């Protein structure tokens, strides 16, 4: 029953609409009989948006960071890079570690130079990256992977020992392109920030070189 009502309704609607369409068509086509553009040609073209551009790289890293006077500990974090050209990229990094006890504290267990919360180290930085040496590695007879040896230079902030310190970061890395969308990095970085004043008050203005080596897995998209 419902469908019949619907059908009648549709027929009525179509009946009402039909006389209007030719009237409109008559009005518009009265000037020029031949259309300028043939509507039957389907233009395929090439739309750039159809090409997947993989210029952004995002991933996570883990490794070890040696913080001067506080030993070497696990470090982990995230990185985000944007590749401007085949040589140049911009990268942001966020990393965190938790440092151990100094040798003085190990010798005297009652000595606590920092609270547990102050032993957490967090840094972030922005760097310019240069893909200096592109290359290929071969695994066996049938597999070849593209690689890049790159340099990083940047600046940022480190939060550690109840202080915020300006940090210069310089590094060297190797990027293995496993797939077009996946890369594995091995990165060595030197994070240079002020020495912790409590450890060495006489030289508190001096800078400490804190080496970090990490492995990253990144995805291009």
């Amino acid at each position: 029953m419902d469908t019949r009502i619907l059908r009648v309704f549709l027929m009525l609607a179509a009946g009402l609409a039909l006389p209007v369409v030719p009237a409109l068509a008559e009005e518009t086509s009265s000037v020029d009989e031949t259309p300028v553009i043939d509507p039957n040609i389907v233009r395929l073209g090439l739309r750039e948006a159809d090409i997947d551009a993989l210029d952004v790289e995002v991933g996570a890293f883990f490794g070890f960071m040696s913080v001067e006077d506080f030993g070497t500990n696990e470090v982990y974090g995230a990185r985000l890079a944007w590749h401007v050209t085949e040589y140049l990229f911009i990268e942001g990094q966020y990393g965190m570690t938790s440092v151990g006890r100094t040798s003085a504290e190990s010798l005297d267990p009652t000595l606590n130079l920092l609270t547990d919360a102050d032993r957490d180290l967090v840094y972030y930085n922005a760097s310019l990256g240069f893909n200096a040496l592109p290359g290929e590695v071969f695994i066996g007879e049938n597999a070849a992977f593209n690689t890049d040896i790159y340099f990083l230079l940047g600046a940022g902030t480190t939060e550690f020992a109840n202080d915020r310190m300006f940090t210069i970061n310089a590094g060297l890395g190797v990027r293995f392109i496993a797939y077009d969308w996946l890369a594995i990095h091995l990165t060595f970085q030197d994070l240079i920030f002020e020495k912790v004043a409590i450890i060495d008050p006489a030289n508190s203005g001096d800078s400490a070189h804190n080496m970090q080596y990490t492995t990253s897995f990144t995805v291009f998209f």
Partner: protein
Amino acid sequence: MFARILIALVVACSFSAVSARASEYPSVEVQDAFLDLRTGPGEGYPKVQIVERGDFVEILLSKTDWFKVRTRKGFEGWVHRDDMERTLDPDGDKIRISTVGEDEFAHRRWEAGVKMGDFEGNTMVGGLLGYYFTQNLSIELNASEALGSFSDSQLYSLSITHQPWPQWRCSPYFIMGGGAIKIQPEAKFVQTRDRTDQTVHAGLGMRVYITRQFMFRGEYRSNVILTDVDDNLEIEEWTLGFSAFF
């Protein structure tokens, strides 16, 4: 019941397989005598294959200036943007790939960047986000921190910038605006509380177009911190940084 689910699954899978095959990559016709394919997206990678005039290649993806293509025979390689522009699209028109260049630099809308420098003896790091109303005028949001031995400060500011010659590769600009500064004295040196003050600033800078969507910028600002005490504090700020524009 299970059979029905199984059939539904099979149908769904076959549909997705069909749609995957249907979503073909755009293909272009080689117009030059030949098209060089390299093993990687860089000019150092060796050329390992050529595609002759009249042959078609599919464009799989791009990385910076390089396009990964697949030949009819299934061979995959990388082609530079300049070579890609000497191919024809399915309509027989030369393909046009938009590159971002100096012209786009002059007509940019958004800018995002980072900077570092000197804030009256303290080291400053920060970030910025800008929006251009016109080629000459933009509004800019800055967030930075100045790290020193005696105090750390956080600065937030909103500025108007004006560049008289937007079409220049090295484009100078004027900046003025206001904001707030939060100063945190280091507890180990002085026992005072954090304080927040209003600031006003004026200065000038230079944006230098480098390549693609990338520019360097250097800036000088004279900040005046409006304190409660009689004398206002004047602080000079010098920064260098880089930005990307969109």
